[in-house]
């Protein structure tokens, strides 16, 4: 990820906060507005960050993953129903991750073992997730009259969360914190460990990896599963951290935004995180618009992330280079 892009992202985030501060009509001190927008940004960026990192593991190993949306949606459902049945948020969380991995297993099975076109495989998973969760929701969940297990509690960081003004930023729920940790760990794993070197090699030149005795198939399976598990965690955010219920299409395209964040971030964890924060900031502005009386039509603010995605993916701010073997099924001779 280039420096220029990082600066662009940070400038845009600051710009969005400035818009909120300058245009507010309610009598609130500017620092309160800024801190509130920042805290919401971090919250809304959580599923996008996790989705983008999920895509990153897959694509760095050479498997295109447009199924992040489907994996998250299925996981949102799995997490909520498991939590509701067992009345345990921890089991719900685990179920979310496992549901994501199950979808990942399907993706890997189709695209690595059977070398199905990865876009087709991803589309299958997205459609399957919509159909399956919709069916189970209306036919099973709504008839079972389950009670929600509630939401994951805030985990305020000691001292920092007590700060005046900035305090709210450090009062987040567990998955939001984990998403930041996942970014840092993923950066280390991809660029400083044996696993990362092999993963990237398999995604860039699988034959080269094969000739030095690395199993392309195993590396791809494992990375798709890791990615899908992270997507599952991202899915659990929707039903265990954001709202205490499952609704049809609850992920609302966030998986595709995550895909855009991954690409905009140049297939790097920190880049993807920065891009996710940018999308989160646009979302946060929309939510804060009402609270602080910011006179921008909420439809316009709502449109902003998507507009931004188009501008970004059109390559206006430079084009990122994907892994060379991304999307290419590997065939041994």
């Amino acid at each position, binding site marked *: 990820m280039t420096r220029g892009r990082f600066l662009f992202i940070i400038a845009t985030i600051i710009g969005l906060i400035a818009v909120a501060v300058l245009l507010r009509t309610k009598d609130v001190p500017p620092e309160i507005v800024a801190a509130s927008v920042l805290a919401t940004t971090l919250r809304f960026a959580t599923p996008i960050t996790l989705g983008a990192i999920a895509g990153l593991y897959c694509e760095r190993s050479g498997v295109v993953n447009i199924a992040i949306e489907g994996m998250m949606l299925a996981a949102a459902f799995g997490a909520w129903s498991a939590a509701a049945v067992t009345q345990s948020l921890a089991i719900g969380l685990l179920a979310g991750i496992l549901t994501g991995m199950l979808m990942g297993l399907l993706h890997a099975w189709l695209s690595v073992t059977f070398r199905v076109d990865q876009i087709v495989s991803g589309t299958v998973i997205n459609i399957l997730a919509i159909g399956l969760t919709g069916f189970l929701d209306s036919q099973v969940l709504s008839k079972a009259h389950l009670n929600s297990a509630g939401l994951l509690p805030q985990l305020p960081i000691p001292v920092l969360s007590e700060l005046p003004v900035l305090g709210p930023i450090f009062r987040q729920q567990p998955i939001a914190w984990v998403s930041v940790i996942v970014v840092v760990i993923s950066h280390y794993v991809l660029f*400083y*460990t*044996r696993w990362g*070197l*092999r993963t*990237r*090699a398999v995604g*860039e*030149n699988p*034959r*080269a*990896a*094969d*000739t*030095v*005795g*690395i199993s392309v198939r195993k590396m791809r399976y494992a990375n798709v599963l890791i990615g899908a598990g992270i997507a599952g965690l991202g899915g659990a955010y929707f039903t265990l951290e954001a709202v205490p219920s499952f609704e049809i299409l609850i992920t609302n395209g966030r998986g595709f935004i995550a895909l855009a964040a991954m690409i905009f971030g140049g297939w790097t964890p920190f880049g993807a995180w920065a891009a996710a924060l940018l999308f989160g900031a646009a979302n946060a502005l929309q939510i804060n618009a009402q609270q602080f009386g910011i006179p921008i039509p909420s439809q316009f603010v709502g449109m902003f992330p998507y507009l931004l995605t188009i501008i970004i993916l059109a390559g206006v701010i430079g084009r990122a280079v994907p892994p*060379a073997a991304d999307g290419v099924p590997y065939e041994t*001779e």
Partner: protein
Amino acid sequence: MEREVVLEARNITKTFPGVVANQDVSLKLYRGEVLALLGENGAGKTTLMNILYGLYHQDSGEMLVRGQPVRISSPSESIRRGIGMVHQHFMLVPVFTVAENIILGAETLKGFSLDMATARARIHELSSQYHLDVDPDTYVKDLSVGQQQRVEIVKALYRKADILILDEPTAVLTPQEGQGLFAIIRALTAQGTAVIFISHKLKEVLEIADRIMVLRRGKVVGETVPQGATERSLAEMMVGRSVLLDVAKQPANPGGVVLDLRDLVVNDDRDQQVVNGVSLEVRAGEIVGIAGVQGNGQSELVEALTGLRRVQSGTVAIAGADYTNASPRPITEAGTAHVPEDRQEDGLVLAYSIADNLVLNTYYLPPFAQGITMNEAAIRDNALKLIKEYDVRTPSPFVPVGNLSGGNKQKVVIARELSRPIKLLIAAQPTRGLDVGSIEFIHKTIVEQRDAGAAVLLVSAELDEIMSLSDRIAVMYHGQIVAIVPTGQATREDLGLLMAGAQLETVTS
């Protein structure tokens, strides 16, 4: 003194559906020697090496490494046995550093992290021990082909390989880089490494090998030492009949200028200027060869001439008319035949039949086009005629062209391009990857076109081909023609130096 046999293959047989790739092949490799494996494409050299390297498994026969019978079922197994292989197409990751490429699959760790410091130190050590001169911290994409090859060699040595298989290692090198490689091979064998050197180039096999084994149609047809062999005797062993190594041709009889290039500037796909003001004339009845290491702008130059790439500035004239930035069809209709560098990608539609491929340049004209339909009978008759004339080996004209061997594919391209009267033939790497028999045929055809009055522009990375076919040789370096010399007035060494960027004065003085 009995020398140690490090690798032995006994009666290896390997069949693929319909083909016997190796039949009863036996070889012995001694410590510290260079064994050359000579053979045409399809003779079974690569299959044999893939068996030794564990990519294939033999149907029958035995392999012994240092006297121990082994069953090598995967590359990691062969690496563990000390066998290293430098593939013809390098197995490197361009966006990785040299060090990352070398340690891949054989990483040392410090905790969970890669131990790059130790790796760097070992690479420096190996690099100086064998004079390989590789810098662990450069990105592979920034290296020349010759340097990448040295990285591949270090990669094998890093894994403690003492049996090194080099598959067509000089195919991509300049003559000077080739000499550099030979020096490295000598340094390796002096310290005990055994080398299998696969090639179809007779000259270099005679130069570097201690022993030469010749394969033909999957069988060992002979073994010899360089002292007892000549290029001619090796070629005959390889092909199984006497061959013409030199192209028989009369002196050229040049006529008027057909292709006239003035100050041509062309950019590559990344918009970098790679042809920097090329001016060149090619006359009717002469062959002008463009010599140069791959990637010095030749490919882009040819694409610009044939309408496949934009000319930034300068002019292209064919037979007196301006064709700068014309599209391919008017250029073709002006009498230009184009044998593209990549026949699979640009020369043929692999999924189409031979018959359809043979009319790709004329399908819209009668007799092949009849109003809005195709005249299948005319297309078939045309195919049958050309298949016969150009000796394309195929069971039927309706076989997808992708099923043919490399030599036959190229014959289809050439048959199509020369099936109508032409004024200009642009041939880029016309014999790349072909066997001696096909090369002989293609060379003969090119000379015939010249003698019939066509102007021929030949681009080739094979210096021998340029020297034996061309009437004049233009050397291209960094997008410029650095010298134009009549063939016969420049030696191989001079041309090699020019190709590497030396000035004409320093070469001839």
